[in-house]
C-alpha cells in the first residue's frame, strides 16, 4: 500500500515563498489531481514529490518512508512530463527499456517487460520507430510506457495532455482512467484543466497561491465548494458570485441580493447569523430557472452552443449566468421571469470566503472504491 503524505511542507525560492505550508494525505491507489491556475504551486508540489525540487521545510513521505533526502531515482516513482521528454535518438523500444537499463534489470528480462508495457498501451507496431516519427498521442503513450514499465510505486503526471488536440485529449483521458483502474497504483496528476481533474480523479486538491483550498472528491468540490475561490474556479461557465446580506426573520434566514429578497431553508446555514451577516453568494448556472418564478430578469446576451445556451441576465441589480436547454427561445432585451433553486445556493462569509452552508461536513464516500 503506497500513500503519499505532505506534512507541513514549505517551499521558498530565495525570498519568494511558493508554498507556505502544505498538508496533504493521499491514500493508496488514489488518482489525485492537483488543480489550480498558473503559479498556484501545483507543479512545484509535484516536483518536490519527484525529488526535482528540495522542500525548504517539512516532510514528504511515500508509504512509510521519508523521501526528503532521497534522490529521484531512489524514490521508486515515475514521471510523465508535459513535453513527454522522450529521448529523441532512441527508438520507442529503447526509450521504454531505458529505466530498466539504468536500474540494472538483467538484459534477458527486459524484452518481456518492454513487450508487456507496449501491449498494455498498444505500442507494439511502433516499437522500432523514433519519437519524432510518432504523433502527439503516440508519444504520450510511449512516455506512459516508459513510466509504467518498471512498476513504480507512484506515478507522477505533469499536465500530460495539454499538448494534445481536444479530441485526442478526450480519448487519452479515457485511456488514463482505464490504466489507473487496471494498475491500481497511486497517481498524482497536475493540471490546470478542471475537466481533466473532474473526469479522472478520485480526489482533487484545488490549490491557489501555494495553499490548498479544498481536497475532496470531484462531486464534493462541485456541489460543496469550501470557499469562494473554489466556487469561482470550478465549473464552466463559472458560478454567479454576488455580495449580499443575510438576516433572520421568524427563524428563517432571509438573503438580500441587490433588490432581490429570498427566504432560504431553515437548516440552510451551519450557524445562525447574529443580526445582519455580510456574505458572498454563489449560484451555479443550472440552479437558476427561467420562465418561472417571481423575479423579473432582463436578458443581456444569449450564447447558443447547440445542446444548451448560456444566458447572461440582470435581475435586481445582479448579473446572473444561466444555463438553459438549447431549444429555449430567448432574445436579448427581453424581460423574463426567473427563479433560484434556494436549497442549492452557496453561501460564503464575505471576509474569510469560508463556506457557511450546513452541508459542508457531509460524509464523503471512499474515493478509491468509488472508481472500481
Amino acid at each position, binding site marked *: 500500500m503506497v500513500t503519499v503524505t505532505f506534512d507541513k511542507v514549505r517551499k521558498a525560492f530565495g525570498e519568494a515563498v511558493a508554498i507556505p505550508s502544505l498538508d496533504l494525505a493521499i491514500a493508496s491507489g488514489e488518482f489525485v489531481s492537483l488543480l489550480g491556475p498558473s503559479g498556484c504551486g501545483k507543479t512545484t508540489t509535484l516536483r518536490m514529490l*519527484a*525529488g*526535482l525540487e528540495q522542500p525548504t521545510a517539512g516532510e514528504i513521505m511515500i508509504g512509510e518512508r521519508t523521501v526528503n533526502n532521497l*534522490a*529521484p*531515482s531512489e524514490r521508486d*516513482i*515515475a*514521471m510523465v*512530463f*508535459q*513535453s513527454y*521528454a522522450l*529521448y*529523441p*535518438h532512441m527508438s520507442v523500444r529503447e526509450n521504454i527499456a*531505458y*529505466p530498466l537499463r*539504468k*536500474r540494472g534489470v538483467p538484459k534477458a528480462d527486459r524484452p518481456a517487460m518492454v513487450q508487456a508495457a507496449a501491449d498494455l498501451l498498444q505500442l507494439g507496431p511502433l516499437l522500432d520507430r*523514433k519519437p*519524432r516519427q510518432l504523433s502527439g498521442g503516440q508519444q504520450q503513450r510511449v512516455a506512459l510506457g*516508459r513510466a509504467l514499465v518498471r512498476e513504480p510505486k507512484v506515478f507522477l503526471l505533469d499536465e500530460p495532455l495539454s499538448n494534445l488536440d481536444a479530441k485526442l485529449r478526450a480519448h487519452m483521458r479515457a485511456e488514463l482512467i482505464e490504466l489507473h483502474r487496471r494498475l491500481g497504483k497511486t497517481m498524482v496528476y497536475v493540471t490546470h484543466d478542471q475537466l481533466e481533474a473532474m473526469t479522472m480523479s478520485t480526489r482533487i486538491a484545488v490549490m491557489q497561491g501555494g495553499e490548498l483550498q479544498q481536497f475532496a472528491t470531484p462531486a464534493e468540490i462541485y456541489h460543496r465548494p469550501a470557499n469562494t475561490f473554489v466556487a469561482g474556479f470550478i465549473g464552466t461557465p463559472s458560478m454567479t458570485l454576488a455580495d449580499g446580506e443575510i438576516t433572520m426573520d421568524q427563524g428563517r434566514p432571509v438573503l438580500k441580493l441587490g433588490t432581490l429578497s429570498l427566504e432560504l431553508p431553515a437548516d440552510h446555514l451551519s450557524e445562525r447569523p447574529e443580526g445582519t451577516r455580510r456574505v458572498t453568494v454563489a449560484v451555479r448556472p443550472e440552479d437558476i430557472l427561467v420562465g418561472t418564478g417571481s423575479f423579473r430578469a432582463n436578458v443581456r446576451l444569449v450564447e447558443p452552443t447547440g445542446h444548451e445556451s448560456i444566458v447572461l441576465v440582470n435581475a435586481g441589480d445582479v448579473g446572473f449566468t444561466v444555463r438553459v436547454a438549447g431549444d429555449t427561445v430567448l432574445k436579448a432585451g427581453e424581460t423574463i421571469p426567473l427563479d433560484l433553486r434556494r436549497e442549492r445556493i452557496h453561501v460564503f462569509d464575505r471576509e474569510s470566503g469560508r463556506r457557511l452552508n450546513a452541508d459542508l461536513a457531509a460524509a464523503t464516500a471512499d474515493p478509491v472504491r468509488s472508481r472500481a
Partner: protein
Amino acid sequence: MTISASQHRTRNPLERRYALLGVLLIAPTVLILCAVIVYPLISAIYLSLFSIYTPTLKGSWVGLGNYAQVFGSSGFWGALGTTVTWTVGTLFLQIVFGVAMALLLNQNILFRSLARSLVLFPYFVSTVVAVLIWRWLFNDLYGILSHLLIQFGVVDMPVDWLGKMPNAMASVIFVGAWKFFPFVVIAVLARLQTIPEQLYEAATIDGAGVFGRFFDVTLPQLKEVLTIVILLRTIWDFKEFDLIYLLTGGGPVNNTRTLPLIVYQQAFGLNQMGIAATYAVAMMLVMLAFMLIYLYRARRQAP
C-alpha cells in the same frame, strides 16, 4: 520532361518577370564567387600542369609530370603523415577541451558571463601575437614553462619545447588546440542551451547518474553540431599555415612540416610555382576524399 518544358513555355509574363528579377538578384553573388573561388581553383589546376619559375611565371608544359614527381617523392607522403598527425592531434584536444569547457560554462557558476567572454580570448588574438607569446613561454633559456618545471623539481634541465621531437609536434598541437578550442566552445554551448531540461529530469528519474545523463542525453543531442564542428575544424586545421610556420617553421628537420608549409616553400622558397600548385591540388584531393567519406558516414548514422 515534355510537360515541364511546355509549362516553361506557357509561363505567364508576370512569372517571367519574377524569374528575371531572381536572376538579376543572384547574379552579383555568383559572379563574385566565380572570381574568388572558381577562377583560382581552375587556375591552380592549370598551373599544376606546368613547370613554372615563380618570379617570371613562365615555364613549360609538363602534363602530369609534376604529379608523378610529387606522389613519387617521400617528402609528400612524409608531410601528409605530419599533417594528419597535427590535424588529428589538435582536433582531438580542441573537441575534448571545447566540450568540457562548454559543459562547465553551461553550469550556474560564479562569473559565468565573464568566463564566457574570456574563453574566446585565444580565438580573437591574432596568430602572430599568440605565437610570439607562446615562443616566449616555451623558450629554453628564459621561458617560464621550463623555469616552473625546474622550480617544482619535475625536470633538472630546461626542456627544449620546439627544437626536439616529439616535443615540437606536441607543442604545435597544444598551441593549436589552445588557439582554436573557443570555436568548439561557442558552437557546443549554443547547442547545450537548447537541450530541454526535462530530458535531464526524465533521465534522473529513470535512474541515470551524471555520466549516464552525459552519454544518454547530452552527447546524442550534440552529435549534429559536433559533426559540423569536426568537419569545419578538420578543413581549417588541415590547411593551417601561419601558426605552424611561425612556431617552428616546419622544424626540427621538417618534423612539423605540414603540406601547406611545403606549398609555401615550393612556391616562394624554391620558386617552383608549378610544383606548389600540384601540392595544393593534391591537398584538395585528400581533403575532398576525407570529406566525402565523413559526410557519407555522418548522413548514414543520422536517424
